[in-house]
């Protein structure tokens, strides 16, 4: 502190840095979930993270393979377009067109472009060219059919930079031309001259396609790209250039099929042959991934999503952003959140490392809790040993998995029946994209008996034609199940369907008549009724609530809410709220810290409530920044800094007076009691500490009785504190400086809730 004092005294210094009070604000060292958490193992966190990693990798791999399948056709299309760009052209065109492939995909674009690059690399190698045999023999040269060059907006700020990137991106790649030739910077072709590329291309000895990727195409300067495209179009087809544009915007209207059409002039478009490909995106892709990851009969994820999480994902993807990357982050957050619970260490109860660890002595407490849960009452008397408990957990796990499989099968059967029996039109606009997804939460909550009854009734009324569609589809579903376990479990259902199919009479030839239910032959009516009954029974058997299983919270996120603040926070209101009510933030933080302290170290509840009488703290009790901010909220559009300072000073005077008063009171109380000092709590606010400091600093005098020197010191202190608080608000972006009016600043926010 002395150095600051010295600096403050020094009239030559124009600027002094006053560091924040370290002593006040040092937070206790906290690991995310301290090991003393009473029902956790001592190394529970690390072990859970291992399990998490395992489970998450399994889920992520599944998601990625789904995405890859979805994107594969586009990537193959791009590769086809690239390889045929110069061979398959419409005859009779007035001039050759520059092939451009505009790939638009909103979400998960990185994986799509990765796939396209892979696909292009896989294009078969050009057959060796015999025009230059000596070269091929001397050194093995690369001979790909497609050579790629990736450009990013930052490389292409000017035309020269862009052309340089275009040319050197190819020319400087190794391994295509046997001898790298040294070019002189002055007398050779310039490195942004497309003729250099031409020379290089003819030196290759064969004619590979040169593919230029423009990533984040929307961020390129249209004026620059326009000229670059023009220059390139002058050199085709001698230089077989192909452009691939990575767009992130969808077409907005039929008259603007892509961003390219919206932004570039007709002149430029006339030079190009734009093929537009767009990747799957939007809520449909989210639905596809969720369905195939968590509700596919052939895949068992380690963790099953609960209805609240699903609700959030559906809402977020229809409301804010439906992208693959976003979905993956959300799923990962769900997994991380799930593995906070100590009990999730048993996600794989048969894993040997976990078993051996649980045999240790210090796991006793954990096992006791577990045992209590298994036996149903905390005061159970039978004392199971660890192996028995683990066996019980395994049994519970198997039961849970069986039920989850049942739910998945039932859900898929429902989808099939719905699509056939109710003829649901799947492409009826955007809403249908997530229809299946929205059906999921009720399924998991077990609120589906009405729907099941309805489906059963609908099935009973089906015509013979519909039955001929429905039964084979169901049969195909059961027949194509890959998982052996599920097949075995659903053996009866399959047998039932086969027998129904065998009994079903052939449909009549005139469908108009057969469509009328009244005229169904009795055999069909009987079959349909049997089918409907069986279906109702089957679905009711299989739709169970997963959270009714024993220990389901190990494998099921249940009703845990999604930590939405992490994915979609509101930073400004949060900062404003923290500034207006710092005490609440401090309290919440303290409570969080308390929650993670071991029970023994925890202060008693009365300690916590000690002076928590729920009253609003007085203005003088608040930190400087908050005082300043309160005054700022009351001001108009422009704030006069001097007035602001004056009002701040008034509050500080009050604070000083109050602190002295308190200190005097405490002193007298101490003198009276002269007993033990009051217990220190973690909730001691800044203000109180400051009071103590001041106590020691200054003599106990009457407030008005300051001498001149002290008055001066005080005013300097007030000024310094004002400046610091002001700068804090400035850094946080609440004030703007006006260049025109002296001593005034402009408010940057207005609607501050009080």
């Amino acid at each position, binding site marked *: 502190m002395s150095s600051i004092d010295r600096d403050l005294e020094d009239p030559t210094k124009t600027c002094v840095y006053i560091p924040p009070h370290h002593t006040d604000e040092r937070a206790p060292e906290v690991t995310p979930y301290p090991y003393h958490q009473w029902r956790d193992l001592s190394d529970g966190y690390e072990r859970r993270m291992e399990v998490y990693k395992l489970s998450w990798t399994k889920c992520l791999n599944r998601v990625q393979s789904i995405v890859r399948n979805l994107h594969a056709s586009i990537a193959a299309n791009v590769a086809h377009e690239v390889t045929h760009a110069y061979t398959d052209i419409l*005859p009779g065109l007035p001039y050759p067109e520059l092939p451009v492939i505009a790939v638009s995909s909103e979400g998960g674009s990185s994986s799509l472009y990765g796939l396209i690059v892979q696909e292009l690399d896989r294009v078969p190698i050009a057959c060796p060219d015999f025009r230059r045999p000596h070269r091929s023999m001397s050194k093995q040269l690369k001979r790909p059919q497609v050579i790629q060059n990736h450009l990013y907006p930052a490389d292409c700020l000017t035309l020269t930079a862009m*052309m340089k990137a275009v040319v050197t991106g190819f020319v400087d790649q190794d391994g295509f031309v046997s001898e790298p030739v040294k*070019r002189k910077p002055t007398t050779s*072709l310039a490195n942004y001259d497309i003729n250099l590329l031409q020379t290089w291309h003819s030196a290759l000895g064969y004619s590979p396609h040169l593919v230029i990727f423009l990533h984040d195409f929307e961020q390129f300067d249209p004026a620059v790209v326009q*000229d670059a495209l023009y220059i390139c179009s002058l050199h085709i087809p001698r230089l077989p250039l192909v452009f691939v544009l990575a767009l992130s915007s*969808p077409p907005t209207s039929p008259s603007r099929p892509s961003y390219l059409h919206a932004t570039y002039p007709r002149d430029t478009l006339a030079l190009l042959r734009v093929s537009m490909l767009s990747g799957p995106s939007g809520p449909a892709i989210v639905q596809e991934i969720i369905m195939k990851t968590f509700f596919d009969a052939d895949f068992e994820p380690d963790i099953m999503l609960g209805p609240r999480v699903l609700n959030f994902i559906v809402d977020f993807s*229809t409301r804010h952003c439906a992208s693959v990357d976003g979905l993956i982050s959300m799923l990962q957050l769900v997994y991380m959140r799930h593995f906070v619970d100590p009990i999730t260490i048993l996600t794989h109860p048969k894993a040997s490392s976990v078993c051996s660890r649980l045999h240790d002595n210090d796991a006793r407490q954990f096992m006791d809790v577990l045992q209590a849960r298994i036996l149903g009452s905390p005061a159970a008397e039978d004392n199971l040993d660890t192996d028995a408990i683990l066996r019980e957990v395994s049994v519970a796990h198997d039961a849970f998995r069986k039920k989850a499989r049942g739910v998945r099968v039932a859900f898929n059967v429902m989808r099939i029946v719905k699509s056939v029996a109710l003829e649901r039109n799947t492409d009826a606009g955007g809403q249908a994209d997530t229809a299946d997804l929205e059906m999921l939460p009720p399924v998991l909550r077990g609120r589906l008996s009405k729907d099941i009854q309805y489906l059963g009734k609908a099935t009973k009324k089906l015509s013979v034609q519909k039955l001929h569609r429905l039964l084979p589809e169901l049969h195909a579903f059961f027949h194509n199940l890959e998982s052996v376990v599920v097949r075995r479990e659903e053996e009866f259902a399959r047998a039932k369907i086969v027998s129904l199919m065998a009994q079903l009479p052939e449909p009549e030839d005139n469908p108009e008549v057969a469509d009328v239910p009244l005229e169904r032959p009795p055999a069909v009516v009987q079959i349909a009724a049997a089918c409907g009954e069986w279906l109702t029974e089957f679905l009711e058997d299989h739709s169970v609530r997963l959270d009714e299983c024993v220990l389901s919270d190990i494998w099921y996120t249940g009703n845990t809410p999604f930590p939405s603040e992490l994915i979609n926070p509101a*930073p400004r209101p949060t900062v404003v709220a923290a500034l207006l009510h710092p005490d609440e933030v401090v309290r919440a933080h303290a409570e969080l810290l308390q929650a993670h302290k071991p029970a023994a170290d925890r202060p008693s509840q009365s300690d916590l409530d000690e002076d928590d009488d729920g009253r609003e703290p007085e203005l003088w009790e608040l930190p400087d920044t908050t005082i300043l901010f309160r005054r700022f909220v009351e001001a108009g559009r422009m704030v006069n800094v001097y007035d602001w300072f004056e009002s701040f000073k008034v509050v500080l005077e009050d604070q000083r007076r109050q602190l002295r008063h308190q200190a005097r009171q405490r002193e007298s109380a101490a003198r009276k009691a002269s007993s033990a000092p009051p217990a220190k709590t973690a909730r001691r606010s800044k203000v109180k500490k400051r009071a103590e400091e001041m106590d020691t600093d200054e003599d106990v005098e009457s407030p008005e009785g300051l001498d001149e020197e002290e008055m001066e010191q005080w005013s300097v202190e007030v000024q310094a504190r004002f400046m610091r608080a002001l700068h804090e608000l400035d850094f946080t972006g609440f004030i703007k400086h006006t260049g025109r009016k002296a001593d005034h600043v402009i408010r940057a926010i207005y609607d501050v809730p009080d």
Partner: protein
Amino acid sequence: MDPSHTALRTPGFGTSASLLSTLLASYPPPFISIYDPENPRLTASVVRNAVTNLQEGGSSGGTAKIHSAIVNAVACFTPRLFYDSVLNALAEWEPSWEDGCNNWSGLSTMPGQRFNENFDAFVHGLQAVKTYLEQASNETPKAASGKWKGKAKATSTNEGEVYRLVIVIERAERLKQSMPELLVPLTRLAELTQLDVTIILLSDLRWEEFRPPLGAAPDPFYIDIPLLSKSVPDTIDIVTSAFDHAAGASVSSSFTDPEAYSAVLRPLYSQFSATLFSICSPFIHNVHELMYLAAARWPGFIKPVLDAHRAYVQEMERLRVDRQSHEAEDSGAESRDDMQDHYEAGMLYLPSEDTRIRLIRHFTPSITIAVENLYPRLAHAAEWSRANMPPADLLTLAPGHMPGPSPPSAGPVNARDVRAFPRTSKFVLVAAFLASTNPAKTDLRMFGRGASERTRRVRRGVSPRKAKAGTGGAGIKIPQRLLGPLPFPLERLLAILGVLLEEHDAEVRPQAPEFAIPGEYTDMEISRVSVHAAIMELASMRLLTRASSADKVDATPTFKCGISYDVALQLARDLGILLNDLLWDSV
């Protein structure tokens, strides 16, 4: 550069081309400006042909030995590129990779010479080229060059030979932007180099519009290319000339029948071109565009003819087999005649006048659709051509049963649309449209709630569209919707978004019991990261146009709306917003 579909005898360019050739071959002015507003690309290829023809012809005994460089002002965007391209072309020098891509560096006596440093060096370079060319021709004297003797003695050391350098600059209007400092010296190149140099600027702008100020450049010799659209037969001839070039290419293309361009059909193609021209000429003057349309439509147009022909050939083949089986029974002169006919039937023939008229009548409506889709390049020709193929065996159908023109299809159907956007983005777009269209001072009346709610929308239907008599129309206020979007600050967008969300979204969003005060939930929603992310994403898609610079961090960003009224209306309908009620100038 592009395959020259146009020879020197390109119809419609005859006069200009021969004028240019004559000039260049005899006494060319040092500076020529060629102006063609309609078909600059075609003109460029005509000029290129004229110059190359002279260059080749000149060496075999023409008037003067012409060496030319044809450069493009867009491609030569720096002086250095320009110097390199011109000198390499004049010296007919091809840089090779093995030599390190060296530019032409003058005579072998002075290696490593650099001519691309500045204009001065360039002038030296031109002189060096001249010397080089002379030396080169001295080393390989040609017997034929002795034919022409006379006027050139003053400029040429080699007796009887003039070395004339011609520099053609296409899209010369770009010189003014990219290299304004070169424009004046280029026009005075002959003076500066003391050589026989002609510079030809080719542009679709008049020289007056990009000439340097203060009269620094001399006046050029003007050649104005006559408007091609005024001469119908020439245009049709040029369009038809594409037929001959396509004939070779059609064999390897999957987009068209190999026989679509067989020589027999050329008269039909010319008739087709004439129809095309008569439909498109009010809108399109560029010949290349007409050729583009023709290329897209022809494969579909000719398909019925080819189908009919094939069916006929098959039928005849079948008959022939039948006949052969009966041949043993009655062979004679008649059957041999029939065979002769069948043999001829195997060849494609021109359809009858009646069929041609049927075809043209059937395809005329589709040409308009082609113009609508292809001229703005909503689809490319190959794709459109494939999507709009007529059904098989069209000609066998009775005229009344011919299907109408296929519905306009602009390329593949796009499942993704602005309507597939997330809900927040739709709200943001509607809010942006309102912010861009309504004047800022009316916001309180349009969106304000509470006590002043009744005063809202008072103004509907009373907008003063009609000018007062005697004011000459000055009082007419054009609605902002027609004037284009106004910029608005981000805060205003968020405020309007808040109103829209509160009124149209509050019921459907997930419950949040922690927000008790009315409007608090919405306030929280509009300050969430995802709303700002949506705005930035829309800005990157140019559906919101950023009006302020993106570099200024501390200034409030301003945007403009990038969607049209129709799109906004559609989005508003999806969201259940009555857009017209919220517009100050309602429609």
